[in-house]
């Protein structure tokens, strides 16, 4: 088990190097001159442009720029963005907010997705099951920004149950609405995954045996049906955490959440390679760790799975 963990953690190193190199190269290759973004509509003088290039190493070839960035990582000095803010400050500002939002969305989709999916699976073909299936299909089919604006308008503007936008504190209560919107589509997937797995397992041999042994219905459902149905769901949730954090850009935009999405978007537009790479690298690490956790959960969910 310890060796398994160590091996997986060591795998992070090549993933990290490969990802930073690739992303740095992609941002570097974006067309357009980054100084044009700094100088704005009215431009600046050639002397100012030259000194901006020097300041942000934009006058260096790709390899030098990349190595300078790597050097920055190891000396814990990621440099600054074009507005002069330290990149470490930016990371410290945007990640806690987005992580909170993503975890809330994850909790919402896990709890409600699994609960409703289980219920629907056990009542296969009944009215509740059919209703839930149609509803989840609808949620998957409608684009997220439509759902977002709709919820914002109904809940925030018409009913005034919550503010339409999130303040700088991004407190728990403020994030409930955005988290619901963010988790809605995944919720539908979790629900459908759970339902399918439950239906499959409900007719499995070991469930029949358990029932025949005279175990209570409650125990059969929670321990034998549900636990065994969790493997595909947990796999999905693990991958989804990364997707939620990186993909919250639309939701964050609608509710004005000061998180990863908007900062990343602006950095890409401006060609700020160090900012983009730093943010994406953290996202990759989160993604890899979440999946490691999922692998460990497999062994707990299904004792037949062993790691060495």
């Amino acid at each position, binding site marked *: 088990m310890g060796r398994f963990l160590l091996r997986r953690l060591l795998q992070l190193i090549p993933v990290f190097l490969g990802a930073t190199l690739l992303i740095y190269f992609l941002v570097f290759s974006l067309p*357009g001159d980054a100084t044009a973004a*700094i100088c704005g*509509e009215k431009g600046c003088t050639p002397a100012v442009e030259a000194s901006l290039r020097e300041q942000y190493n934009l006058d260096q070839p790709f390899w030098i720029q990349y190595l300078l960035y790597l050097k920055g990582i190891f000396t814990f000095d990621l440099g600054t963005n074009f507005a002069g803010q330290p990149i470490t400050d930016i990371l410290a500002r945007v990640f806690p907010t987005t992580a909170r939002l993503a975890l809330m969305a994850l909790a919402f989709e896990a709890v409600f997705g699994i609960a409703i999916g289980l219920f629907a699976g056990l009542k296969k073909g009944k009215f509740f099951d059919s209703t839930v299936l149609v509803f989840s299909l609808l949620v998957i089919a409608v684009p997220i920004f439509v759902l977002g604006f709709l919820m914002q308008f109904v809940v925030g*503007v018409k009913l005034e149950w919550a*503010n339409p936008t999130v303040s700088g504190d991004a407190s728990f209560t403020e994030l409930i609405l955005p988290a619901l919107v963010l988790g809605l589509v995944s919720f539908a997937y979790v629900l459908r995954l759970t339902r399918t797995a439950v239906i499959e397992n409900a007719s499995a041999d070991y469930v029949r045996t358990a029932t025949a042994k005279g175990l209570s219905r409650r125990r059969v459902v929670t321990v034998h049906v549900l636990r065994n149905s969790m493997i595909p769901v947990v796999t999905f949730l693990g991958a989804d955490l990364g997707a939620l954090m990186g993909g919250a850009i639309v939701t964050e935009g609608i509710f004005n959440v000061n998180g990863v999405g908007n900062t990343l978007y602006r950095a890409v537009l401006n060609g700020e390679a160090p900012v983009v790479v730093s943010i994406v690298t953290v996202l990759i690490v989160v993604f890899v760790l979440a999946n490691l956790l999922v692998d460990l959960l497999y062994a707990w969910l299904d004792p037949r799975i062993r790691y060495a």
Partner: protein
Amino acid sequence: MRYSRTSKILGVAAAVALSLSACGGGGDNAADGGGDTSRVIVVDGAEPQNPLIPTNTNEVGGGAVLDLIFAGLISYDADGKPQNEMAESIDTDDSQNYTIKLKADQKFTNGDPVTAASFVDAWNYGAAAKNAQLSGYFFESIEGYDEASAEGSKVDELSGLKVVDDTTFTVKLKQPESDFPLRLGYSAFYPMPEEALKDPKKYGENPVGNGPYKFDGDGAWEHETQIKLVPNEDYEGPQKPKNGGVTFKIYQNDTTAYQDLISDNLDVLKTIPTSDIKNFKNDLGDRSIESPYAGNQTIAIPYYLDNWDGEAGKLRRQAISMAINREEITDVIFNGGRTPAKEFTAPVLDGYSDSIPGSENLAYDPEKAKELWAKAEKIEPYDKSEKLTIAYNADKGDHKTWVEAVVNNIKNNLDIKVAGKPYATFKEVRTDATAQKLTGAIRSGWQADYPSLANFLGPIYTTGAGSNDAVYENKKFDDAITKGLSADNVEDGSKAMNEAQEMLLDDLPAIPLWYQVAQGGWSDNVENVEFGWNGVPLYYAITGK
């Protein structure tokens, strides 16, 4: 000189107004309009793109904040008329040598006095190449600028600036320019305290100014979230705050801000998003405003393109211009939020004229357009397979809709191939424009830095100018601008500028489309909202209800 006399009178008028409002006392009622003067006004803002240093801010997000926390030598009232702030007087005999006297006993909010050196040092800092300040080019008229701003230059002082005593300094320009005093209200010309120049990086996070407002303590700028300003009690100028503070709430997009506005979570929104243009007057009623400001939209056609140079090129430019139905586009697409252009500047400016000879080239006349195009064909045939593109950036500004409308106008009336050419980002289109590698026309807009006709002409159409995307080169035009700048007074200057515009209207290096109109609104919680000459609300005058 006329200017200095008016500015002295203005100074007196401002002082009188101030003492009058002081009599009213700091109670609940402002001198005019009434309203709650203790309310903190929440307005929409954008994250400043640079540290908040006056000489290093070249965009509106940071500019709006700077304009509240700093007071320059002069400021502009709602109509763009100059009024004295820190200046007691600005005098000149020849429009080239200026003597600037400051009001006595003015202070920065850290207690430092505002002296002649506060201005001179700040301007020197802004102009010197080694400091790489984005707005450094604003000092280009001052003697010694070329030496200080040259690439790699170690010179850090402008030879044209001299401190005489604590409250007096002199400015020597390279050549006479009568609208120089008019520029002094622009943010690049604000004074800075000593601490700013010692550690600009630290200062840019928590700037200390001398304006109507100040930062609400260190860290009042919460990045990407909000910037909190409170009134500066020591400020005694024409923009005395009538509210308990201004908080800029930073929005990622206008649509979200609009939702906050209609649910009364935001007090003032200065730009209604395109998607709500059709219904904002219904939603807000008398809390909406349409206020023309000093900005315009044009399409520049570079002279380095085939077909668009020489006599035939000129006829083609005129044909394109007459093929565009400006009235219809401003009506249908912008719902009246723009007004058709009659020349190259903007109607809110002093000296504007809507009947400059040649302005008929901007009127919709498809028959004449076809005629002119045919005439150009006789001189030099146009390759029908060639496509005229109009470049625009797709990342901000919502240009797609109107570019498509213009494209259709030209296509239908002249029967040539035309298409919009979206660039993914602003920086890409600017890179091609600066490198003169555009393959077609480019949309370009101009927002005034200071209320002057010259600001819309000099930086865009003179030979080699920084924003001359069309690469227009016309010696006669350059001379006319120089002549206009050196006129004895602003009136004569404006006249000369409009004469220079006759050449532009004939040559059409760029095709003026329309003038900008600010479309904004406010919540049920505030009143006394008015927009200024530059499309920015007069934040200081807003009161609670």
